[in-house]
């Protein structure tokens, strides 16, 4: 009996089983979704998904649902989502890196006040700005005749602006660790501040920029609100299409499940591939 207890302690069986239990609860819903997406409508309607796991050989596995939703717009939505997400990740990082550089290495009047304002803006609910921004864009396109709402560009602008406070904060925190003597040395060698930014500070800040890039990518990819308001049904993104599918689950859960799977596969790959950087970004405080 004593021996058994010792072995159990050594392997941490108690902790392992508790965790195993938690992990099961955490994973089962997602597994259910994946299984459902691979079933026929006639099966998914009348029997629960775990029937398919317990009788894997008798189940008619099919990718029919994936073909269905791909044809009904999910594939276009995938392309649209990339078109929204990639610039909406790169642009704010570029703008924020420049701004962080000014906040870290240049001196000007009111710097502290402006920076405090930025920090304060980090928690502002984005809903507080959206309606005026939308109306401002409509007014703009009436005045100068350049279409903004309903285009990718409007989403890029809005996402860039909302990312600004946090991105500046994170990147500045990292830039503070770059020794000022390095900048001064380059100045003495006759390099301009512009040159110092592009060839010295920007490359050195890459770790912070990279981990924020992962965040911004996931955030924009997964966003529903901004895409719905500014891009809309003209070029619907994945979250938009998925919500539409969810409203039609009467057509069978397999289609909804396949749609959800298409929408989450890219962020999941990014997450699994770059988990280390993601965690590093989290622990350095980059969270919306």
């Amino acid at each position, binding site marked *: 009996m004593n021996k058994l207890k010792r072995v159990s302690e050594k392997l941490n069986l108690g902790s392992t089983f508790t965790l195993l239990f938690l992990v099961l609860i955490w994973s089962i819903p997602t597994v259910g979704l994946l299984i459902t997406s691979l079933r026929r409508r006639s099966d998914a309607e009348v029997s*629960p998904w775990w029937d398919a796991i317990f009788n894997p050989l008798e189940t008619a596995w099919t990718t029919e649902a994936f073909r269905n939703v791909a044809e009904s717009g999910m594939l276009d939505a995938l392309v649209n989502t990339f078109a929204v997400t990639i610039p909406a990740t790169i642009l704010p990082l570029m703008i924020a890196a420049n701004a962080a550089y000014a906040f870290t290495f240049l001196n000007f009047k009111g710097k502290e006040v402006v920076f405090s304002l930025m920090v304060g*803006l980090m928690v*502002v609910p984005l809903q507080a700005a959206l309606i005026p921004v939308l109306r401002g864009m409509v007014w703009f396109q009436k005045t100068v005749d350049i279409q903004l709402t309903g285009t990718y560009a409007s989403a890029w602008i809005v996402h860039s602006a909302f990312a600004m406070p946090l991105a500046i904060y994170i990147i500045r925190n990292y830039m503070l660790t770059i020794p000022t003597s390095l900048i001064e040395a380059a100045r003495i060698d006759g390099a301009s501040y512009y040159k110092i930014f592009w060839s010295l500070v920007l490359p050195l800040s890459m770790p912070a920029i990279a981990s924020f890039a992962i965040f911004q990518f996931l955030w924009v990819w997964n966003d529903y*609100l901004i895409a719905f308001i500014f891009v809309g049904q003209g070029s619907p993104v994945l979250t938009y299409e*998925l919500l539409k599918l969810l409203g039609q689950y009467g057509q069978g859960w397999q289609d909804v499940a396949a749609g959800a799977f298409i929408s989450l596969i890219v962020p999941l790959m990014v997450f699994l591939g770059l988990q280390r950087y993601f965690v590093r970004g989290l622990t350095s405080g980059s969270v919306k």
Partner: protein
Amino acid sequence: MGDIIFGLIAVTFGIVASYGLYWLLNALLSLLPEKILRRVQWLAFLTPALVLVALVLLAPIVQTFVWSFMDKRVENYVGFDNYIALFTDPDFLSVLVNNLLWVLVVPAVTVAIGTAVATLTNQVGPNREKIFKTLIFMPMSISFVAAATIWSLTYAYVPPGRPEIGILNSVMVGLGLEAQPWLTISDGKLNTFLLMAVLVWLQVGYSMVIISAAIKAVPEETLEAAKLDAANAWQVFRHIILPQVWGSIMAVFVTVLILVMKIFDVVLAMTGGNFDTSVLALEWFTAFFESREIGPASAIVVVLFVLIVPLMYVQIRTVKKQEELR
């Protein structure tokens, strides 16, 4: 295919244009005499960010405040009418109660489970730790809408006669109970609690990662000392680990709190705010996009804003503290 090519061109153009913008700003400023240049140099780097934040964030927020005192089509000032209408509407008060419940339950539960998982994974060795952490963390990468889909399937209800396809109801039937249309049951706010479960499921990974990093930073000596004093595992956790990771726990708590106050997508996707589950951000959404009532919608968002301001203060204070430590 045409879409993809157009997209690529747009992306390239956008990036080149923004690089060009900084180049141009710098070139223009360089024309200035050295003496003046030194004082305005920062403009070359900060102008785009400031313009963006001023136009898309600051000015619109001010505008929202002003509009909250105007009528539906923002033509006339109506004083506090929008606010009076909100706070005398029993439906809106019930929405506030829902928000309050979210705020009371979700951050606390998320932090509690996160701390438990972080502590347990710290004991099982690096291999198992990695697998468990990845699986708990995974939901963090998916969208609220996808999460809502996953859980809608879990809570799915099939009227009696056919087998249940949702796990929850299947368990109910297995226990000899009756299947329930869960998301429509507002007694005891049951459906709101079921929606909260989705958010907890999404956020525990985040809370675990931060708290786990803090636990790993606890100095070995303090743990050794406790062991010499023959403290048991619970005592070590309660008196040695917990006090040292408390700062991180509070940071996670505030972050989740802010997120929860703005909660919107999960409710929209799962119940559409029906069956007494609506929250502030969703009320704002319907007031604007369905009823086109700009004044009242702005008032709702101002209420949300006012509730978040104290947290803004906490945020700035934490940042200031970190700066001083530097």
